[in-house]
């Protein structure tokens, strides 16, 4: 258990640090979905509601911080998808990155549970489209050229 928490944290800290625009955020999200839908991946194991609670609490806290830092960076640089073309309609400044990060983490957690019992990635993807909507990182947003993982 302990090792899967450490591995998720190490990988998330590396991959979220690279995210500087909406397209990269969409790439991050695709990678996480893939991990969570793989039954024995460290991601899927780490989010199961069993095992060491303080360890998981620590992982979730730090993961949320990493997501919040990433969102702050995106908001500051104005690099979130539609902010470039529709700033009049959607003032990005009103988004609270800390709270948005809680929703994104909840969407990962709750969405993957719904997807696991349904044996279908759709609920997880729908949950993330919902949570990431203000940051324009929806599934069909990323141009195909970025799919080089």
């Amino acid at each position, binding site marked *: 258990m302990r090792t899967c928490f450490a591995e998720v944290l190490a990988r998330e800290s590396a991959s979220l640090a690279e995210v500087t625009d909406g397209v990269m955020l969409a790439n991050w999200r695709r990678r996480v979905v893939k991990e969570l839908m793989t*039954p024995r991946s460290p991601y899927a194991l780490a989010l*199961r509601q069993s095992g060491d609670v303080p360890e998981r609490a620590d992982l979730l806290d730090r993961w949320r911080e990493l997501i919040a830092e990433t969102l702050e960076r995106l908001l500051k640089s104005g690099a979130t998808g539609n902010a470039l073309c529709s700033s009049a309609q959607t003032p990005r400044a009103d988004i609270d990155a800390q709270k948005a990060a809680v929703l994104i983490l909840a969407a990962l957690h709750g*969405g993957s549970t719904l997807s696991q019992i349904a044996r279908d990635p759709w609920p997880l993807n729908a949950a993330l489209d919902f949570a990431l909507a203000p940051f324009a990182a929806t599934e069909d947003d990323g141009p195909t050229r970025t799919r080089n993982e």
Partner: protein
Amino acid sequence: MYVQGVGDTTLDDVLAASGVSKSQLYHHFDGKDALVRAVIDHVGERVIERERDALGHVSTIAGLRRWRDSLVQNNALRHGAYGCALGSLASEVTDHDTLARQALSNLFTEWQGLLAGVLRRLQDSGVLAPEASVDQLATGLMAALQGGYMLAQTARDVTPMATSVDMALAHIESLSAG
């Protein structure tokens, strides 16, 4: 069982908690999987009944917020420790137990249908934009709720659940037609 979690519950725990003998238990339930299914049916029925009462006639954002308030208040009483009975079962049911998984999946579909009903009424009254995808929003809201319960349970603090559902409702409100 849903306090302790399915994986950590043994038949002996059930015997100790219920005061029945092993032979009586096996007489009623064909091993642990059957017992887990009986718990799912029982918990599921209660949750769906509660949610039908709470959501069946909601047709405003304010009504959705009252639904949220009651769930958050209930969960706050125990510092979020118990989480959602149905969500806890869903995150723990083993991969090999297809029937249990299917039963949970049906229950969540039913619950989400109640949320979709509210969103459809919001759409009918012109509050929610007609192009909004009701199924996607209902799924997003359910995941925010369930994920929020799980974060609260792990943190032993109801705050992340409240934040997650608030953010979800704020997003739905931001899609309003007006």
